[in-house]
């Protein structure tokens, strides 16, 4: 019926060349490889002092040594426990509090200002005080992780509740839903994506907090190792631990992201 042909010359059917289509991963990978190569060569040739900058090969060798040793697992475990405890407490506090603040205007008016003051201030600076209160062991680490993670989760939870689709609320009310119904069946599920995003941000902050806390004063843990090796100028070892914690943080973030995507696919519209 209709002609998709035309008498005039038409753009040829062709596929974009391989290079153009995969432009992004190719360039990015090349970039990283070049960087590693430059680093290695610079250290080898003496352009930079390898004692200060380490070398990819040195880091690799150090990694093998470290992974084989017992206390690598021990230090990772210590850090993980601090992180897990602090993060769990943060979840337990921030989600209910965030939900409450999301629905209660009065609560917001009074509680939000001091909370925001705490949120915008650098919480790292609370470390010395926390150490005075809780000592140099697990307590202060858990506390700093808690403080790091609690605010992003709470703020995002609150925003999630407040940003609920008004149309859903109106529809629910039209069907005679009670306030509790609306809260449990519309607001909470509706704010799940925002909560998860807050959790993802909180994970990043929590990991950072545990590292800082352990670097500042600690007897064990990844941060402690980083600081010790740093002061001994064994940067290859330091970098192994730095990459380890980066990987851990990244892995957690990816896991939460996957959860976020799963949830988002349930929603038909944004």
């Amino acid at each position: 019926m209709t002609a998709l042909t035309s008498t005039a010359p038409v753009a040829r059917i062709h596929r974009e060349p391989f290079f153009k289509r995969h432009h992004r991963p190719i360039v990015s990978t090349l970039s990283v490889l070049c960087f590693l190569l430059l680093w290695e060569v610079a250290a080898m040739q003496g352009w930079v002092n390898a004692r200060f900058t380490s070398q990819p090969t040195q880091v690799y060798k150090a990694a093998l040594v470290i992974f084989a040793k017992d206390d690598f697992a021990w230090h990772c475990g210590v850090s993980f426990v601090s992180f897990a405890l602090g993060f769990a407490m943060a979840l337990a506090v921030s989600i209910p509090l965030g939900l409450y603040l999301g629905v209660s205007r009065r609560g917001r008016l009074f509680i939000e200002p001091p909370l925001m003051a705490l949120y915008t201030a650098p919480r790292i600076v609370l470390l010395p005080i926390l150490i005075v209160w809780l000592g140099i062991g697990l307590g202060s680490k858990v506390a700093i992780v808690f403080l790091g993670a609690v605010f992003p989760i709470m703020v995002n939870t609150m925003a999630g509740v407040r940003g609920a689709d008004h149309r859903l609320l109106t529809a629910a009310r039209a069907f005679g839903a009670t306030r509790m119904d609306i809260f449990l069946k519309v607001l909470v599920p509706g704010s799940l994506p925002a909560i998860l995003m807050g959790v993802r941000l909180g994970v990043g902050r929590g990991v950072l907090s545990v590292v800082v806390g352990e670097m500042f004063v600690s007897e064990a843990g990844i941060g402690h190792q980083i600081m010790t090796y740093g002061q001994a100028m064994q940067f290859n070892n330091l970098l192994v631990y730095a990459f380890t914690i980066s990987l851990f943080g990244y892995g957690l973030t990816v896991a939460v992201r996957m959860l976020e995507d799963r949830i988002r696919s349930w929603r038909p519209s944004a």
Partner: protein
Amino acid sequence: MSQDVAASGRMEIRDLSITYRKPKSDEIFTAVDRVSLTIEKGSFVTIVGSSGCGKSTLLLAMAGLIPRAAGSITLGGAEVTKPGPDRAMVFQDASLLPWRTVHGNVRFALELQRWKRDDIDERALRYVRMVGLAAFADYHPHQLSGGMRQRVNIARALCVDPDVLLMDEPFGALDAQTREVMCDELLRIWERDKKTAIFVTHAIDEAIFLGDRVVVMGRNPGHVREVIEIDLPRPRTSAMLDSPAFVAYRRQLREYIAADLLALQMVEALV
């Protein structure tokens, strides 16, 4: 000589074809298939058709914003290949810079086309007045209603003194009453300079009310089905909407467009 003058503003479209490559596949989709049209200087032409008939695509090609696969578009004898000061476009979305005032937005077009610094302010203000927004010259877009924003859009297009005014469903986002008001306004403004105007719409009444000629486009692929001369006197008034002539045009256009939709349904039933 008068022929030269006429030719200078005439837009000629010959065997124009525009194709797209479908995203994520290698198929070619023909949006416009061998369209030929002549638009005389100073005429108001409306283009109407159901969605997907390529009317907006055609307009974008006239503006020089999309490339063509075959055929030619000339304005006053010169080929149209990219945007130029001889054509100005009015989009459905007003696309006003939110950080500039009404006056600033109209000036924007003049700045882009490198008019003389000293003239810009005054000229922009003149066109702001022309569209009836003198009192709102220092307002920002977010303070204006949809109809007002479109007026700024129109002022912006007119102030660069184009030979052809291209309008892509400019009133599409407005409510019914505002649309009527804007149609009257548009004709009032147009009557002053009688610039060549090409107006795309899917509202049949609008097409008849505004145009000297109505180009009916059909879809799959986009092509010109029919061109209807509108023999209603100018200036147009809303009283004409009920006149028998108008009703007859409306019926005629309805039939064309309905036939198009029907044919489409038949094809889809067969497939």
